[in-house]
């Protein structure tokens, strides 16, 4: 039976059928006027709509934006494509060969230069952060001449004329004061200046002086090669953190620490030190000693190693053991010392000679030039300045008023020098006292060459035209010497012999490094002490009373001793690898001293020595030698810029200016004040609470016995017995058909230096939040390094003490703890707890195994962060780029100048959204695109996250776990069931980050033999 709706349908007339099944009846134009000039109704509406829109638009004032195209577009510059240029970072402390990543002519990031045989692609945190200093608005932006209390902007030509005439009229001695300069061409320029003004002397000083080390080794730093040392004994040398060349040493050191089932050996590291340093944290055996004991320690070790059999007041089993290890590994052992006591250094040199280190763990052909400061010459200059015999002084990136222990005398001396010129980059504590300021350009704006080690050369090339009206210091010197060549030509001339043609030169500029030829002259040497004289000196050293409080001054990994990067907020906010403190220094005291004096963390105490007092808060530092306190140098700047001023206090004047050089120790008196000042730490709980599922470690002995038993794998009960947690799941697993990105972190290689933290921050535009917000526990670092101290108490006390008491006791670290570092960032879980709880699907799983964050979709409930077992999610509590509270510390996001450093591939996150590590998704995408353009799969190693790129010790391996030949896949296969573990395996979130169990080489086979 068929129903019909009307007669028309029943009849199925063709004209009806035409429109029967259309949704709308055809429009009948019969309503429209027959008049052709009259608009039809619909057209009228259209026209009216357009008219209204047009009128509205016309009434808005269109903003005028000027975009000026390249008239001649540089071939290599393309928006959205980064260009890398090789360059070199050296500001007087550590040398790093870098690649400068630029976007449309703006340097935005520094990466390690893998071509460098010294740093091998590693980069220190300080070097990473240096790109921000380029855009530092606190730099002096033009030449200036003092007039009255202020400075007047000066025209360069007039400035040069004035300086030249003044220099010519100078009668007394002319001194150029600088930190260590390792540039052969800069030295040539200085020599040319000295030739023009013959009574010129060039005085170099290091903020953390290595005078004694140089004196004991013929004026250079020995060419240490830690990679060949089975036994390293360090007497207060933080060679992994700050001493001489930490990136180079860290890498060499880590090579001896990498183990696998085929190489079950690793080096052993003894550290005798006062303050807890990064090296001390990594040491297998660490012995806290007082600074005044160091001479006796060196002597005891010397006696034991050489069998000289002299008497030493210092006795310690571990020292005996160290000496045995050293002698047993003759030719594969190394003794170093960070002491600035010539006697100690003389003994160390003698020990290395006795142990046959020269030629093995010390390369005699490649000594390092990165320390050249001479305490005696600097002290003499300061005296001369004060007695009026100096006619002119030029400070070339030197700030002795702040960072030299004799700063006060330098200040009084400057007042007595008729002509004072500063070539510092800003009107800092020293520069502001000078009459003339000729600001040096930033090294990223400059040409230069470097010779960090004999025969190892590298170049710096400008990657941007000078942002301000500055001039390279070398060029200034040349001008004043009457030489009008540009510094580039001058540099080119130095290199003419090495690179006779342009192609050779271009290659060096391209590579950034060259080896084989020495440019620098051999340094002048001071006679070293003989061991006998050294022993004599140590014996005659004045005794320090046993109850005296001794101060050890040390250097921080972030800021360094010179404090020249104080206005770099990245470094101010880089947590100290050991104390995890940011924004300022403090008095590190051992717990016993704090308990005895009833000090609590944050109590401000006065530390007095040399008649100088600093007020700093107390930080209870496990591992600090009893009876000593430690204070970091480099803080307390007063004229560095908005971010760096008044952060901490300057401890340099507390150093001891002894007759034989500067000693970074002293006897101090302490007095508690009523004030308290909280210390901004990013980690306030310090022990691991025996949580094996979080981070694992074991002993080398165990590893040698059976690599399969060093990691405790968590098992869960299933109907089929105990199984790995990932064998049971409520969820379906994701299928990864293309890539599956993963990361593997070798806890044995990670030394905790924090380079990756800054690398991540520059790559990902992470905001700096300032001291108060760190105290509020809201730092924004996507990547952090968790540091755990060992405790004297363990779970095995549950039975005797009870759980409550044991847990409470486990919160306290040991007095001299073992330390483990664990880099922690988003674990990119395959069963991510954050993904399920977001109400708006702002965090989701990618088809390549990444846990991705969609900022635009985030409404900021923060449930994901609560539900993250690793607590790696970071919330934008404020508008860090526009809230005036953050202008001081995060200033680079507030100005057009500073914003140039931001990575255009990464969004600056808005207030109220969650952010976290993305595995550098922008780098992954770039790598995939590049490969796609070339119609191939991405190659292993082509795509690296910023943290993995910057790691000096190659502790972080990033790659595609679906590619069976990738490094990470190979490592996974090799380490599976041995050292590979996931943090918190039992909660079965299935992270894509895998850790490798740390192995310690602490037990002694010697002791075992003796006991047997």
């Amino acid at each position, binding site marked *: 039976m068929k129903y019909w709706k009307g007669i028309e349908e029943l009849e199925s007339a063709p004209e009806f059928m035409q429109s029967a099944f259309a949704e709308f009846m055809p429009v009948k134009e019969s309503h429209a006027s027959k008049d052709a000039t009259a608009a039809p109704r619909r057209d009228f509406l259209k026209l009216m709509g357009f008219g209204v829109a047009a009128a509205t638009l016309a009434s808005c004032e269109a903003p005028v934006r000027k975009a000026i195209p390249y008239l001649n577009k540089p071939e290599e510059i393309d928006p959205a494509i980064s260009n890398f240029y090789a360059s070199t970072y050296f500001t007087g402390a550590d040398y790093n060969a870098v690649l400068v990543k630029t976007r449309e002519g703006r340097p935005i990031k520094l990466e390690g230069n893998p071509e460098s045989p010294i740093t091998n692609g590693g980069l220190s945190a300080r070097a990473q952060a240096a790109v921000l200093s380029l855009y530092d608005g606190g730099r002096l932006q033009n030449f200036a001449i003092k007039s009255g209390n202020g400075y007047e902007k000066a025209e360069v030509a007039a400035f040069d004329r004035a300086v030249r005439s003044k220099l010519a009229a100078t009668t007394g001695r002319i001194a150029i004061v600088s930190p260590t300069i390792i540039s052969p061409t800069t030295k040539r320029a200085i020599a040319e200046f000295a030739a023009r003004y013959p009574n010129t002397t060039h005085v170099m000083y290091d903020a953390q002086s290595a005078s004694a080390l140089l004196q004991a080794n013929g004026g250079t730093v020995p060419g240490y090669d830690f990679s060949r040392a089975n036994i390293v004994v360090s007497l207060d040398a933080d060679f992994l953190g700050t001493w001489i060349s930490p990136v180079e040493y860290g890498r060499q050191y880590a090579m001896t620490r990498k183990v696998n089932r085929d190489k079950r050996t690793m080096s052993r590291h003894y550290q005798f030190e006062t303050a807890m340093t990064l090296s001390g944290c990594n040491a297998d055996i660490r012995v806290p000693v007082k600074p005044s004991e160091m001479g006796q320690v060196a002597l005891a070790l010397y006696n034991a190693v050489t069998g000289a059999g002299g008497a030493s007041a210092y006795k310690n089993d571990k020292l005996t053991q160290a000496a045995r290890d050293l002698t047993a590994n003759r030719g594969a052992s190394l003794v170093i010392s960070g002491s600035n006591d010539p006697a100690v250094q003389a003994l160390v040199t003698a020990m290395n000679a006795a142990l046959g280190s020269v030629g093995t763990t010390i390369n005699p052909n490649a000594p390092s030039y990165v320390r050249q400061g001479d305490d005696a010459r600097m002290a003499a200059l300061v005296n001369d300045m004060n007695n009026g015999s100096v006619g002119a002084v030029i400070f070339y990136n030197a700030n002795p008023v702040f960072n030299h222990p004799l700063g006060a005398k330098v200040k009084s001396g400057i007042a007595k020098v008729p002509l004072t010129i500063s070539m510092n980059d800003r009107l800092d504590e020293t520069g502001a006292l000078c009459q003339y300021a000729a600001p040096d350009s930033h090294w990223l704006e400059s040409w230069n060459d470097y010779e960090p080690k004999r025969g190892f050369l590298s170049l710096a090339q400008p990657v941007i035209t000078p942002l301000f009206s500055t001039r390279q210091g070398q060029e200034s010197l040349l001008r004043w010497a009457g030489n009008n060549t540009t510094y580039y030509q001058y540099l080119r001339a130095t290199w003419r012999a090495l690179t006779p043609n342009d192609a050779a030169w271009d290659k060096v500029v391209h590579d950034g490094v060259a080896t084989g030829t020495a440019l620098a002259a051999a340094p002048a040497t001071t006679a070293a002490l003989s061991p006998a004289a050294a022993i004599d000196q140590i014996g005659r050293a004045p005794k320090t009373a046993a109850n005296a409080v001794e101060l050890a001054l040390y250097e921080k990994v972030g800021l360094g001793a010179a404090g020249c990067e104080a206005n770099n907020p990245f470094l101010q906010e880089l947590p100290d690898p050991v104390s995890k403190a940011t924004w300022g220094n403090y008095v590190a005291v051992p717990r016993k001293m704090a308990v005895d004096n009833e000090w609590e963390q944050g109590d401000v105490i006065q530390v007095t020595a040399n008649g100088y007092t600093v007020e700093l808060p107390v930080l209870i530092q496990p591992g600090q030698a009893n009876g000593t306190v430690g204070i970091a140098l480099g803080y307390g700047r007063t004229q560095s810029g908005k971010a760096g001023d008044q952060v901490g206090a300057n401890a340099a004047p507390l150093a001891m200016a002894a007759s034989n050089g500067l000693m970074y120790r002293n006897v101090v008196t302490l007095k508690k004040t009523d004030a308290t000042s909280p210390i901004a730490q990013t980690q306030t709980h310090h022990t*691991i609470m025996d949580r094996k599922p979080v981070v694992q470690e074991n002993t080398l002995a165990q590893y040698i016995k059976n690599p399969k038993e060093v990691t405790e794998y968590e098992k869960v009960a299933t109907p089929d017995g105990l199984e790995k947690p990932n064998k049971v799941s409520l969820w379906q697993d994701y299928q990864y058909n293309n890539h599956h990105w993963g990361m593997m972190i070798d806890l044995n290689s990670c030394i905790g230096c924090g380079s990756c933290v800054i690398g991540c921050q520059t790559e990902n535009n992470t905001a700096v939040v300032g001291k108060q917000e760190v105290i509020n526990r*809201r730092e924004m670092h996507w990547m952090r390094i968790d540091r755990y101290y060992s405790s004297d108490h363990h779970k095995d006390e549950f039975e005797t003490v009870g759980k409550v008491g044991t847990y409470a006791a486990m919160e306290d670290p040991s007095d001299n703890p073992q330390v483990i570092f664990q880099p922690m960032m988003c674990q990119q879980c395959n069963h991510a707890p954050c993904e399920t709880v977001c*109400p*708006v699907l702002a965090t989701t799983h990618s088809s390549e195994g990444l846990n991705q964050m969609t900022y635009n979709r985030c*409404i900021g409930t923060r449930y994901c962060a609560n539900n993250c077992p690793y*607590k790696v999610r970071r919330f934008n509590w404020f508008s860090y780029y526009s809230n005036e509270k953050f202008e001081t510390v995060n200033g680079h996001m507030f100005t057009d100048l500073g914003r140039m450093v931001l990575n255009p591939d990464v969004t600056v996150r808005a207030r109220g959204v969650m952010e976290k590590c993305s595995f550098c998704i922008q780098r992954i995408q770039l790598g995939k695109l590049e490969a796609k353009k070339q119609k191939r799969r991405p190659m292993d190693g082509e795509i690296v996250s910023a943290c993995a790129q910057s790691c000096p010790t190659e502790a972080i391996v990033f790659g595609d776990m679906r590619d069976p030949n990738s490094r990470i896949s190979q490592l996974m296969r090799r380490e599976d069931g041995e050292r590979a573990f996931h943090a918190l395996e039992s909660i079965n979130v299935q992270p894509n980050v895998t850790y490798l169990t740390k192995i310690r080489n602490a037990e002694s086979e010697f002791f075992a033999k003796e006991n047997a």
Partner: protein
Amino acid sequence: MQHVSAVREPLVTGGKTLHDVTQDICYQVEAKPNIRWMAALSVALFFLGIFFYSVYRTVWYGIGEWGLNKTVNWAWDITNFVWWVGIGHAGTLISAVLLLFRQKWRSSINRAAEAMTIFAVICAAMFPVLHMGRPWLAYWVFPFQNTFGSLWVNFNSPLLWDVFAISTYFTVSLVFWYIGLIPDFATIRDRAKGSIAKFSYSMLSFGWKGSAKAWSRYETVSLILAGVSTPLVLSVHTIVSMDFATSVVPGWHTTIFPPYFVAGAIFSGFAMVLTLMLITRVVFRLEDYITLEHIALMNKIMMVTGSIVGVAYITEFFIAWYSQVEFEQYAFINRATGPYWWSYAAMMTCNVITPQLVWIRRVRYSIPLTFVLSIIVNIGMWFERFVIIVTSLHRDYLPSSWAMFSPSIIDIGLYVGTLGLFFTLFLLFAKFFPVINMAEVKTILKYTVDNGPTYNPQKAAHATPAPQPAIHGAPASAPVNYNKHD
């Protein structure tokens, strides 16, 4: 005259006539506001001002104005949210569950309790919105057709379940409450003298005529809504508890949470009802309607739910021990002995120990003691949520991330601000709406037309509960209450 059964005590004392009831309850609406009400409203408005200032700071500068940090991402915000939602539950329980169970004594308190529910849910709803980093995008939690592309909400997320639970709860409670108000609005309308009042109340009463048919429908709708609301009593706090129970955070990841939260909600809700009722009956002279019997009954419910909560607390510890999960064990040890031990101690004292005093008859029937007790329970239940949220979060898996939380002034401002918001709403309600359901109370009067006294205005004003001799006679319009209350 009130008929007093020899075996059953009256639910409304004071020998009220039907007219007395109308007179007593409408009096508050019709009279000029008294000075105590004005004073109370000023205080409430002051705190409301604090609320608006705190909201301004939060929305203008960001959540950073609060004391939260990278480890503790929820603290007072969600504590307050759960606390307020919990408080609301008593209203629903009284209006829905007790209606279904024919607990007639509920009639004199259900109106105010329901109003409390609605205002508490309003206060509660402030926090999920304000705690968002970008509250202006709060509407993204609704699954609506949008032009953002294929964006949709995440039905896996307990927060989304919350959205549905709370919005349903609010809607149903509001409708239920309003339906109950209609006959009373009509009464006020009929008595109103001023034109504004007449107009307003006639609008509010939706043209209620009081016909038998209307009453019949009214009863039916009430029953249906009671049926709809009853599962909500259980579902809302179950879902709120799943915000925690479905997570991986030790101390949150607990299957006991749904019943435990529901019991806790009723517990705190009754405490709040008691607090409010004890004030209202004094301020508005409603002692005859909200009698000691009511107070004792509510005390008993509080004691039962309080005991359930206490058992739950202990069960959590047992499960932590029984599971042998290290993180879970530590979470509970830390709760009781860690840096926030005082909040745990406060919770245990207020929620487990104090309600047990209700076993003592003197306490149960004492107005001052009950008032103090109700406040203590409210404090205790706030601490319960604080303990669950903050002490679980502040020390979870990785010791490196352990942190402390302390509230900022804005956190505190928002909390006392919502108290201001709540009391402002409640005071406005108490002044302009009939605080007791007249229509329903009239049904439970034991009243005979034959023997009843004529209306005595003085008596209405003073309402002295003179003991009346039991007079036997046929009950009039009021149905007999067959329930015995003790």
